[in-house]
């Protein structure tokens, strides 16, 4: 069964450093998403991406974040200058388009980011 994969599973970085989290969405999916979950808090939406551009973003997704689909398979989240409060589990998701906004988002296993 196709699944979303994410690398690395864990990443430790120093405050102020740039990190890139990688995701491989399900191959025939066209919408891609990033969510995050700070320890002990809810899963929060960050951004959605379609047709090589951001289609929707939350207030959390400020200028220090960016997303990219550098090739036909990967989808990346870059944090330019990490802060302590960026420590979280980051989930990638993808969905197909059914035309009804009722498609299912399929999630990867997450990348646990720790900023020291």
């Amino acid at each position, binding site marked *: 069964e196709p699944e*979303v994969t994410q690398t690395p599973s864990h990443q430790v970085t120093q405050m102020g450093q740039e990190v890139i989290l990688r995701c491989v969405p399900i191959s025939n999916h066209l919408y891609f998403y990033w969510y995050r979950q700070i320890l002990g808090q809810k899963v929060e939406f960050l951004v959605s991406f379609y047709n090589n551009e951001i289609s929707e973003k939350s207030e959390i997704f400020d200028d220090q974040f960016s997303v990219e689909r550098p090739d036909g398979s990967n989808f990346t989240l870059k944090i330019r200058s990490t802060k302590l409060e960026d420590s979280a589990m980051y989930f990638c998701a993808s969905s197909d388009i059914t035309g009804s906004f*009722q498609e*299912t988002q399929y999630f990867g296993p997450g990348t646990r980011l720790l900023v020291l």
Partner: protein
Amino acid sequence: AQSVTQLDSHVSVSEGTPVLLRCNYSSSYSPSLFWYVQHPNKGLQLLLKYTSAATLVKGINGFEAEFKKSETSFHLTKPSAHMSDAAEYFCVVSDVSTGRRALTFGSGTRLQVQP
């Protein structure tokens, strides 16, 4: 704005007994509702979804949920718990009327299954 409240942060049941995980939602129009499960060190797996068809939705592993508009609830049930059901469960809402695809998650319910 849409929101989800999961009424219990922890639920503990004995193996073989029924499971009830409670969820109430707030949405401006006609929501899509989902239950996802997260096992330790695993991703979020879809259990079931409601998208304005039948109000009683059957999912994987024997779980089901009933959409009750009058009560704004979408509780998850299973007749008989199995040890492998121990996990974190998330109730999730998406409001199609806004045209947004972003999912709104509840805070999660951790299910413990005692032998």
